[in-house]
């Protein structure tokens, strides 16, 4: 910067002369304080006395800086501030409350430096004290906002878990002569509601329906569609004996729903008969289930259209049998599409695990989930749902079927 001539130059020189060392110190725009290394006040500027309301003779040589702090501030001073200053020679932007002479509290921000002599022995502490009243109020607001945000987040997570439990029955019902087991693992840390769901319910004497599906997306929006899909299928399965017709009804429901979301569903209707179960399977864009017989695993069913996209989806019923000792594995795409550095878990590996899995449904469902997770080093990239069914060999007594619902 350059200063011109005439009045401007004169003003510059006047200001320079007026702002002498004494003025710089006494009327600095912050309180300024010097203390012995143990904190006894040896000097302070006018700004400091004005801020605190004390007179010079009340402080100098009589009190320590810590004596002017609130009790909590004194503890903080002794446990944090003083050690920090002693160890590092400086302490910056420490928030404290000074108790003024009139008893009022003054929030301040404090910077200190510790001077040492040539032998390294501490000689004096210099402290700048800034009035931080407004800043502190603003910070308290921030803190409250942060606390509210944390509470909201905790609430949302709790809600997500509660909602999830209504979409994913923790344990499937007990079905006479049919061994049923399920596994579910949400993606990531499980704080968000996933789109996978499954359901197992009775529609008639000796007739059961198993549903597994995957609504696109996550969160509350997806959960609303999941709930809609689940209760629509429950109702539709009661008056349509054809699973494809039930899927068609869900398709219509989703198309009339305001949501843009679609889903994939596999629905299986089981009727007990002869040695095992007769089953009708319909797929709406869903991965084909695995049928395991005599240690041989194969995909079954006819892939159909996604549900909730086309007004006239291609959906068909596929008849199959689940003989004694055979298993059927339904799953969501989180299984074959489990990723590890770009490579997919894949259908081949799923078929192999399913073929090798032990002799009951629970073991099979567990083995598949464990293997997919192991492939992804324990962290599911996508939701994973697995339902395993098995027609067990005769084992004597069976429980009465529980009521539908």
């Amino acid at each position, binding site marked *: 910067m350059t200063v011109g001539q005439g009045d401007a130059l004169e003003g510059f020189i006047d200001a320079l002369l007026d702002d002498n060392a004494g003025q710089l110190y006494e009327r600095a725009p912050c309180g300024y304080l010097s203390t012995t*290394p*143990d*904190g006894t006040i040896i000097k302070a500027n006018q700004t400091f006395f004005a801020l605190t309301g004390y007179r010079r003779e009340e402080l100098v040589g009589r009190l*320590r800086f*810590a004596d002017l702090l*609130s*009790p*909590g*501030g*004194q*503890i*903080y001073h*002794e*446990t*944090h501030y*003083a*050690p*920090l200053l*002693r*160890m*590092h020679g400086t302490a910056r*932007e*420490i*928030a*404290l*409350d000074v108790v003024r002479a009139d008893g009022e509290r003054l*929030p301040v921000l404090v910077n200190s430096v510790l001077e040492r002599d040539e032998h390294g022995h501490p000689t004096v502490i210099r402290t700048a004290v800034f009035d931080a009243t407004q800043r*502190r109020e603003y*910070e308290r607001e*921030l*803190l409250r906002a942060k606390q509210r945000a944390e509470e909201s987040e905790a609430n949302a997570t709790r809600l997500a878990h509660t909602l999830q439990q209504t979409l994913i029955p923790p344990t499937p019902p007990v079905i006479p002569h049919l061994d049923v087991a399920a596994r579910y693992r949400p993606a990531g840390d499980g704080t968000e509601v996933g789109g996978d769901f499954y359901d197992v319910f009775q529609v008639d004497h000796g007739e059961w329906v198993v549903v597994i599906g995957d609504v696109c997306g996550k969160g509350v929006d997806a959960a609303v569609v999941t709930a809609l899909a689940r209760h629509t299928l429950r109702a539709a399965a009661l008056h349509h004996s054809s699973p494809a017709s039930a899927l068609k009804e869900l398709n219509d429901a989703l198309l009339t729903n305001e949501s843009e979301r679609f889903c994939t569903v596999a629905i299986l209707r089981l009727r007990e008969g002869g040695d095992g179960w007769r089953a009708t399977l319909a797929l709406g864009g869903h991965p084909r289930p695995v049928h395991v017989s005599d240690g041989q695993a194969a995909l079954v069913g006819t892939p159909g259209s996604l549900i909730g996209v086309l007004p006239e989806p291609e959906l068909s019923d596929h008849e199959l049998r689940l003989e004694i000792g055979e298993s059927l594995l339904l799953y969501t795409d989180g299984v074959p599409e489990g990723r590890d550095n770009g490579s997919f878990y894949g259908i081949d590996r799923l078929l192999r695990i399913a073929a090798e899995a032990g002799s009951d449904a629970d073991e099979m469902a567990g083995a598949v989930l464990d293997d997919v997770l192991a492939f992804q080093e324990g962290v599911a990239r996508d939701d994973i749902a697995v339902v395993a069914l098995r027609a067990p060999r005769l084992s004597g007594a069976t429980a009465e079927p529980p009521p539908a619902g």
Partner: protein
Amino acid sequence: MLFAHGFGCDQNMWRYVAPRFADDYRIVLFDHVGAGRSDLTAYDRDRYSSLNGYAEDVLEICRALDLDDVIFVGHSVSAMIGVLAAERDPGRFASLVLVGPSPRYINADGYVGGFEVADIDDLLRALESNYLGWSAAMAPVIMGRPDRPELGEELTESFCRTDPEVASHFAQVTFTSDNRDDLSRVDVPTLVLQCSDDVIAPVSVGRFVTDQMPRATMVQLEATGHCPNLSAPDETTAAIEAFLNRIPAQT
């Protein structure tokens, strides 16, 4: 000699004192879980909901390192942590050095701890205010990375900082503790090192500790404040040395 730091900082609190004993003693330094470079994932709110959890840690260190005849040197709250550890396993300890001990910080009927309950809330607010800028800026540096020794220098820089939630919990546990009844049960030669003008542990409290413990002696330092180990390392070291030299005659 096992050195334990108090509330607020970490084992660096002993950097001017502990090395002076290194020629004659095996020196063991540690950070309490939640402080300094400890593994923050080991912080368990239940375990550390009273000072007993910290005392158990001290005993675990003794067992893990197979320490016997331990001279326990505890500053501030760790003084009482040492008392609790010695109460549980007296055979482990040869002596205790309590620097600025207080068995109870809050005043009670007839007992002057120096603080009221409201003062502790005030401290918690002070902690909160000073952690406002912490999370984003400091977290990556401090989040307990024992696997990253190259962070050592920065960690020393930040030695009085720790996770805000841990600090707040530790402050609450520390300043609401009441371990007065434990004092009389510890029959180990004990030195109480008392500062002259300490708002956190006043002289009357140091005297109370000394009177309650069967084998305690108090030395009042000229040093003021709560951290003579930092502000007066010579005087602190000399007092501990004199005490340790006397011990064989006592036992």
